[in-house]
């Protein structure tokens, strides 16, 4: 590196900055006139020092992302106008800079990484070129020097075989590798400020742990100031030096991470921390004598891709899966992406056809019967999906969505509506909700509607496929509580699919851990968490962020 620094217009290795890197003072950003509140962020002040990680914590709508993007100058000022305050980067106010001056600072002095590395990288450009672009914009380095530096930063973020990987496209890499590429890109010019906007939220838990370690390690070595945006107090406990808690566009509390985590002062902070589900499973009574509602024997799903002139590849999405769910019981299926947990759920509902094995539902084998014969069983298994924004038809009223199923199975309109009104109360909504449209509800309310829609079919089995993963943590706790209550009230067998070990600990009687299509461990929740047998289960529990801090919530 030292040898070619003479060829550079400006050396890349700078002496690390010291003191305050980012100083946000009294920042207010105005929302457009028709919004539901006047300011996106109001009178926000905080600092980020060199070599420090400041976590900005808040739920959706707290203004944490707007703050970050205002600092970066990524929001068009005509849409979201900063009306008061300053955002000083190394003493210079970013809000007074022209677009051209900001462009120069972006990438060179401040860089940003985003939540979803798959969509944040250009799919049609080689990852090496995308990192190299950073150098191309801001330096006079020639092609060879750029390549050298790209390989260097890729090695710095622990990417394997960087010389080969520079020629890959984003879709050829894993999620963790993609986020490493993003980090390498952000760090290529050694910025003094790194803004990380939920950088691990879309990643699997073991990958998340690695990326958090990497960010900590790199920022320590280079003395970068990091503004780390997250909604997850587990992550805060893992990496934060200081914490800024935001709610409705205002800072409600800030301080040293240890202090805030051990003695939160503001009620909102307390509520947020109390909403984080505990990794300690509560005591649950065994239901091993209850009637079996759902059982699979040797369930498998194999995908065959290619063929006809191409190479043939077979993928075992699920293999030899045995599971039993009894009435009134919740079985948690836990695993990372690609573990086959959703495949199992979809086979059971017969949204996809299993390749082998048996599915027993209320004494009938339904794995191989045709769609016509399957129809009467459809109502017995209902599913609640991850994203309530997309699983309700936006052009139909809530009522129309809820009564459609029962009416398909012969219930009269009046009865169906009456049942829907009752169910609205069961899920904690007013019966008037039936006349409104999905967009008039918040995410949590929509998920309640989805649960009511499933219950309207009077199912025996309820499958919750990452049903709380897209929700804010405070809402998540309420929806979990609701799911647990309806399971109890309606004596449902529940299959709870999640990647989140904290959530699983709170609602599941038994846990099944899946990895690459196979079940690696199964047992009573308390037993699995206390004495994990399989190395993979141990790795998962190890990786759960903030496992050393006890958070409040027990559902």
């Amino acid at each position: 590196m030292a040898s070619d620094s003479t060829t550079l217009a400006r050396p890349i290795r700078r002496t690390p900055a010291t003191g305050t890197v980012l100083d946000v003072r009294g920042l207010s950003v105005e929302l457009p006139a028709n919004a539901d509140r006047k300011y996106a962020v109001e009178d926000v002040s905080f600092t980020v020092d060199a070599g420090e990680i400041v976590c900005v914590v808040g739920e959706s709508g707290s203004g944490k992302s707007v703050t970050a993007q205002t600092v970066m100058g990524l929001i068009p000022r005509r849409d979201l106008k900063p009306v008061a305050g300053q955002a000083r980067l190394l003493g210079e106010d970013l809000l007074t800079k022209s677009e051209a001056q900001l462009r120069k600072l972006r990438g060179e002095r401040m860089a940003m990484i985003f939540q979803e590395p798959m969509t944040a990288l250009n799919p049609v450009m080689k990852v090496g070129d995308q990192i190299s672009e950073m150098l191309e914009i801001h330096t006079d380095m020639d092609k060879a020097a750029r390549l050298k530096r790209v390989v260097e930063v890729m090695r710095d973020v622990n990417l394997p075989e960087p010389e080969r990987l520079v020629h890959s496209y984003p879709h050829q890499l894993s999620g963790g590798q993609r986020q490493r590429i993003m980090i390498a890109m952000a760090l290529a010019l050694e910025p003094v400020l790194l803004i990380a906007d939920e950088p691990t939220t879309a990643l699997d838990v073991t990958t998340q742990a690695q990326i958090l370690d990497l960010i900590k390690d790199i920022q320590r070595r280079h003395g970068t100031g990091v503004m780390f945006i997250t909604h997850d107090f587990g992550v805060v406990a893992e990496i934060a030096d200081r914490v800024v808690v935001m709610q409705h566009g205002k800072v409600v509390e800030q301080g040293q991470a240890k202090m805030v985590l051990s003695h939160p002062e503001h009620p909102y902070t307390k509520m947020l921390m109390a909403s984080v589900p505990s990794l300690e499973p509560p005591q649950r009574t065994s239901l091993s004598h209850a009637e079996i509602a759902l059982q699979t024997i040797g369930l498998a799903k194999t995908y065959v891709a290619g063929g006809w002139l191409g190479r043939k590849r077979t993928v075992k999405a699920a293999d030899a899966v045995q599971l039993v769910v009894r009435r009134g019981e919740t079985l948690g299926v836990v695993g990372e992406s690609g573990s086959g947990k959703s495949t199992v759920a979809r086979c059971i509902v017969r949204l996809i056809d299993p390749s082998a094995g048996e599915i027993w539902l209320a004494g009938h084998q339904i794995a191989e019967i045709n769609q016509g014969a399957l129809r009467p069983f459809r109502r017995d298994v209902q599913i609640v999906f991850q994203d309530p924004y997309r699983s309700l038809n936006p052009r139909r009223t809530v009522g129309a969505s809820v009564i459609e199923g029962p009416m398909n199975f012969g219930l009269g309109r009046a009865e169906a509506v009456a049942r829907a009104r009752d169910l609205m109360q069961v899920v904690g909504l007013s019966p008037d909700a039936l006349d409104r449209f999905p967009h008039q509800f918040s995410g949590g309310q929509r998920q309640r509607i989805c649960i009511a829609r499933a219950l309207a079919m009077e199912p025996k089995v309820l499958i919750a496929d990452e049903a709380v993963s897209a929700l804010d943590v405070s809402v998540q706790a309420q929806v979990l509580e609701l799911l647990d209550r309806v399971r109890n009230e309606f004596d449902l067998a529940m299959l709870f699919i999640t990647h989140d070990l904290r959530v699983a600990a709170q609602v599941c009687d038994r846990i099944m851990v899946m990895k690459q299509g196979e079940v690696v461990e199964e047992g009573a929740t308390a037993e699995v968490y206390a004495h994990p047998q399989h190395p993979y289960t141990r790795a998962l529990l190890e990786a759960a962020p903030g496992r050393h801090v006890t958070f409040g919530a027990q559902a």
Partner: protein
Amino acid sequence: MLGYIARRVLSTIPVMGVVALFVFLMLRLSPGDPAAVIAGDYATAEDIARIRERLGLDEPIVVQFFQWLGNLLQGDLGISIFTNLPVTTLIAQRLEPTIMLTLTTLTFTILVAVPLGTLAAWKAGSLIDRAVMIFAVAGFSIPVFVLGYMLIYQFSIEWRWLPVQGYKSIFEDGVGPFFRHITLPTLTLSVIYIALIARITRASVLEILQEDYVRTARAKGQSETKVLLRHALRNAAVPIVTVIGLGVALLIGGVVVTESVYNIPGLGRLVLDAVLKRDYPIIQGLILLFSFVYILINLMIDLLYTVFDPRIRY
């Protein structure tokens, strides 16, 4: 990658086969005696018999098909009923003007429409955007023959800048005369095509500009121009290329009218004449040719996808 290309190329064969079958059946399945249909209203019994014999319509239909297919594979498209010349010769004579008109139109269209659509997307909601969109609606609504005569009136008759009609070969008559004659037909034919492609370009660039990686590019400090060219346009290319390809079908229809308006001796005129005279062998030959070109272009588009989008390669 090679497997993908091989698959795409091989899959055109059954498609061509189906097209050939339809073209063959077109005449045989039409109601009544095909020979009488071809001969027209004023034919004598001898005329009909002569045509029937020439087309081999006395044989069983399966024999006819294989004879016809065998000839086809040897490049024999049959003999024109009215001119007694081989259809291949007739097509070859008319090929150049049509190919040239198509090429100039395609080039002009892409050069105008893609930048126009990109500009409109970048400045979405602005006056420029609205102007482009108004042009797109107007361009799409105006019939080719109306536009053709309007252009002739203005450029050729009022201003006397360009010839009214006719075609000059770039190979025999030189570049200058060629462009003087091809300019108005190209303009005429391009307008609808520009309207279509500018619209699609705008829509697809606009969508791409919302993507996260465009934000990433801006976060790197990349300039707006490069964000547009390097990140947005290349990602928007797949839908744009698709529409350019599909639009070729539109172009074939437009060529027929445009060549008539400007009196260009191309395939479009041949189509028109053949249809008016019910010269079935020529019609069949032309349908086969156009289908073949269309399939070829779609094949090229499929292969172009792989250039623009690496995800399709693997």
